[in-house]
């Protein structure tokens, strides 16, 4: 716990100092994107990694948070601290309804259920033009503030993203070592056992889903405001849900470091591949290379990059 706390805050502080020294607009956008995906990954990981409920529809919580925040800022320009909180809570609220209907399903059926739900919300968002402006999307019309400080250019968004990602990491690390966190893990490992130990598995799962949806909603709100534009395709598609799973699984499912490392590696890799000349002839070719790399990790490192690092550390220790 202490080491997580120290390493997270130290890393965050170093990033806060050094990134602005070297960054240009492009690096800022990569770093901010990585930080956003860290939040999404950690959110998915609480439910999928720690509670064992694999969701293929987490984009719906991202989307609810993104739309709520965008609409609030455009309408009343409420401070972002409150806006994001409301976005998160709304996503949590949606999760309660979803959970009530869906937690009677198990395993692959649960995954399919979440996928279906997210798709419903995607279709609703595309057609409910009065609220979401349909496929045309919503532009950010105001200059938002966070605790009274204006957040508009990349540097400001970078600091805010760093703050939010750090808070999310610390929050998840604390949660997982609490009574609630252990109940998540118990349900993941064996639901019957958890019930025999006095845990109501439905309540435990709903709680995990709520927290997970809340975090996805907050991160989604930030994601929308940072992009200054949202539409259903960039918030509510399966692609977003699957990317959350990727960053977590590649990094190391069921670990705090997993989504952090996974996002850093995958997002940088995506950007790098996109910038390669020979891949630019075909705009989507980089996705094939990306997919191949993901397959390699899954086959050779089922525990993700975190497991790989552990193996290397163990080997170094042995040799020395």
């Amino acid at each position, binding site marked *: 716990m202490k080491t997580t706390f120290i390493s997270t805050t130290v890393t965050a502080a170093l990033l806060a100092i050094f990134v602005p020294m070297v960054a240009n607009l492009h690096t800022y956008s990569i770093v901010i994107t990585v930080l956003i995906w860290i939040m999404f990954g950690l959110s998915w990981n609480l439910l999928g990694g720690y509670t064992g409920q694999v969701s293929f529809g987490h984009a719906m919580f991202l989307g609810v948070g993104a739309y709520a925040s965008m609409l609030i800022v455009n309408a009343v320009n409420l401070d972002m601290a409150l806006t994001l909180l409301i976005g998160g809570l709304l996503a949590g609220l949606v999760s309660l309804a979803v959970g009530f209907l869906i937690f009677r399903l198990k395993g692959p059926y649960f995954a399919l259920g979440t996928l279906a739900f997210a798709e419903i919300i995607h279709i609703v968002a595309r057609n409910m033009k009065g609220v979401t402006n349909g496929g045309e999307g919503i532009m950010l019309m105001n200059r938002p503030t966070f605790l009274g400080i204006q957040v508009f250019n990349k540097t400001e968004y970078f600091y805010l993203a760093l703050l939010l990602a750090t808070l999310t990491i610390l929050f998840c690390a604390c949660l997982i070592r609490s009574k609630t966190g252990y109940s998540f893990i118990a349900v993941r490992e064996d639901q019957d056992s958890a019930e025999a130990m*006095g845990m109501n598995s439905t309540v435990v799962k709903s709680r995990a889903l709520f927290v997970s949806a809340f975090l996805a909603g907050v991160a989604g709100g930030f994601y929308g405001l940072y992009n200054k534009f949202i539409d259903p395709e960039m918030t509510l598609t399966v692609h977003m849900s699957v990317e959350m799973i990727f960053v977590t699984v590649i990094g190391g499912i069921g670990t705090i470091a997993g989504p952090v490392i996974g996002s850093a590696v995958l997002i940088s890799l995506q950007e790098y591949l996109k910038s390669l000349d020979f891949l630019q002839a075909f705009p989507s070719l980089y996705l094939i290379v990306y997919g191949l790399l993901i397959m390699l990790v899954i086959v050779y490192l089922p525990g993700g990059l975190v497991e790989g690092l552990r193996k290397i550390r163990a080997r170094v220790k042995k040799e020395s």
Partner: protein
Amino acid sequence: MAILKVENLVKRFGGLAAVNGVSFEVGRGEILALIGPNGAGKTTCFNMIAGYMPPTEGKVIFDGKDVTGQKPYTLNKHGLARTFQVVKPLARLSVFDNVMVACLSKSRNITEARGKAIGVLERTGLASLRDTLAGSLSIGHLKRLEVARALATRPALLLMDEPMGGLTPPEVDRAIELIHDINRDGVSIVIIEHIMKAVMAVAHSIVVLQNGEPIARGKPEAVVRDDRVIRAYLGEGYAAGR
């Protein structure tokens, strides 16, 4: 007053009556053994008592209250714990964490649960394995971990489903000791077990099931001499060897 009273329990799966009219009582501080051939309905009985499946008919009365059809976690809060025949460890957690998690529901926080877990591990002889991953334990230790976890929830009644299946003879002896030890603390026990030596060593009374129906009940000495029990389950060899 009996701690557990089972009245005319019936469970039908389609046309098959897995349990058909089973009734028995467990007194406070008593150890009752449920024996019978495979498929007799012993585990189904446990599942109905512990809330894992609702009975088709009949009643389960625990501590004077009708608890028929209540969920396992509710029953556990009221002091009914069980172990599983097919062990269900939290495989990717250490032995210590397994027991600590079991202590959680009756603790205010993690620190309190940790303190309790140390006590339970020492009592069940698992202290030396505390940092081992539960998934890599031998079957003997896994069975012990099942008991440790059930004990960690501080039960008044413990249902043990074949706690000695797959154990070596010395392990069986240690398990018998552990059961006596648990019982001395005032925990009533219902045990399903095939190892007759163990049943005779711990049980105060026995209920014998065959094809879902009770065919004998009473003191162990009398039950093992019962002709029907010998024919249905124990076999002539066992009877002759006594």
